[in-house]
């Protein structure tokens, strides 16, 4: 393993248009086995762009992403089996049943015993009663559970989740959160997670990366961030850090003029 981490990203920068500021600007991060890193920032801060680069499907202008020491941008196929992803923006084929979807992904990830992997995931995520139900007939909460089952069926070493509970009610969110924590602790997988739910981030994260306008504002444990921004909850940290970053940027822009 490189540097004792499953994931190491250095100085990632991505600019989509030459006359716009970079969507991601020099962000570095690392994730260890069994660690939850939450990426938090306002809408348009660059979280999804950062995730796409970490997943190796978006080429950065500069910087590197290494998973188990392998450059995922250049050699994605060498480590793609160790990575998985789920997002509220994605779904799974509606006309396939829960079991059929998991069977497809068990094969796509080349699992040696696909049938057993499907059974395990259905049991772990309480999906057995829905085995024959088509995805199109599932509730949002059930789809979220199925997406997690799909994301974990390949036994990833590192899992990326983009706002997995954004569309869920509080009870379903708590259930998903509990399942996630169990998986992280049991399987010792690294989890990179984005969410706008600050209470959830507080409960789930080992470390939190705050970003604003594509730049890293701060990164640390929950308590370290409370201390840094002199706050007693993450929502206050978020608001204060974002405002501070915006003020700093405006000051820099004025100084340039």
């Amino acid at each position: 393993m490189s540097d004792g981490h499953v994931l190491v990203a250095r100085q990632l920068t991505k600019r989509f248009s030459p006359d716009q500021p970079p969507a991601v600007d020099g962000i570095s991060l690392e994730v260890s086995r069994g660690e939850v890193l939450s990426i938090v920032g306002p809408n348009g801060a660059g979280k999804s762009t950062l995730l796409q680069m970490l997943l190796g499907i978006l080429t950065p202008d500069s910087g590197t992403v290494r998973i188990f020491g392998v450059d995922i941008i250049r050699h994605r196929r060498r480590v793609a089996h160790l990575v998985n992803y789920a997002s509220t923006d994605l779904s799974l084929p509606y006309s396939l049943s829960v079991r059929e979807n998991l069977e497809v992904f068990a094969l796509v990830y080349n699992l040696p015993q696909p049938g057993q992997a499907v059974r395990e995931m259905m049991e772990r995520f309480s999906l057995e009663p829905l085995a024959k139900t088509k995805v199109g007939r599932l509730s949002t909460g059930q789809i979220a559970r199925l997406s997690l089952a799909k994301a974990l069926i390949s036994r990833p070493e590192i899992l990326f989740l983009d706002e997995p509970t954004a569309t869920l009610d509080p009870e379903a969110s708590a259930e998903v959160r509990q399942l996630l924590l169990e998986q992280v602790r049991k399987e010792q997988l690294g989890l990179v997670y984005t969410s706008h739910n600050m209470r959830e981030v507080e409960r789930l994260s080992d470390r939190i990366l705050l970003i604003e306008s594509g730049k890293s504002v701060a990164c640390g444990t929950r308590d370290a961030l409370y201390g840094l921004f002199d706050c007693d909850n993450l929502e206050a940290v978020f608001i204060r850090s974002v405002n501070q970053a915006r003020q700093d940027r405006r000051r820099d822009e004025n100084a340039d003029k």
Partner: protein
Amino acid sequence: MKMPTNDLESAPVESLPLTRPPVPLFSLRPLAGILLRQVYLYRRSIPRWMEIFYWPLLDLLVWGFLTLYLRQGVLPGTTAAQALLGGLLLWDMLYRSQQGISVVFLEEIWSRNLYNLMVAPVTPYHIIAGAMMTGILKITLSSGTAILLAYLLFSYSLFSLGLSLIPFVLCLVIMGWALGIMTTALILRFGQEAEVLAWGVIFLFQPVSAVFNPVSVLPEGFRQIAFFVPASHIFEGMRQVLSGRGFSWLQLGWALVFDLLYVAGSLFLFSRVLKRARKVGFSLKLGS
């Protein structure tokens, strides 16, 4: 713990009057809203504008050229009918082959699943290869049924083409794959807006594929274009076999050469689109 109850349930209810009248059933403004939605849609969409003119023009060309051919009366009635049915059955194979690839990608886009596959340890080329295999199964089923029905209903056997049927079908399927890959590349590049291409692009080739009429009845410009279309050589070859003039290796050779060029071109386009997508990002939603 006793839950609070609503004491007002039994109280007499006096509702406030409507603050604004309902929208009249025959009001023009909501209708204008629906119309405006379509105007906005078309204002920004070249593929949708193309569709308006595309089908009438192509239908006119295909049926116009067929009329010219029938007017010449070169082939005896039975052979002409055989050529028409044979052309129809083989054309359907080309169409299914192209659709096989495009629709596989579209289904993943429609179900918002493409991104799940992009992050999996498979490449887009795996998806294409899977689509090709699915396409062959679909062609076997659909064309098998059509061939059987043609025999039962019209006493026409496509197998009257003999062994030449095998290379003919192979060449058409390869051309379909090439067009399917090209269409998929355009859908990935321009988003779901370009999905009309999945259903329509193949028909752009129909007037110059000489499906129902020989190349010789086409106007000069169309004849020159037809030379570069693999299907035109196959359908010319089919008519040659049916008219008893034997199998043309030259036509098959040209069809194979252009098939290979089409496949190479479509794979090149597909790889460029993927490279660009990795640079500018894949859309998670891919919608209109």
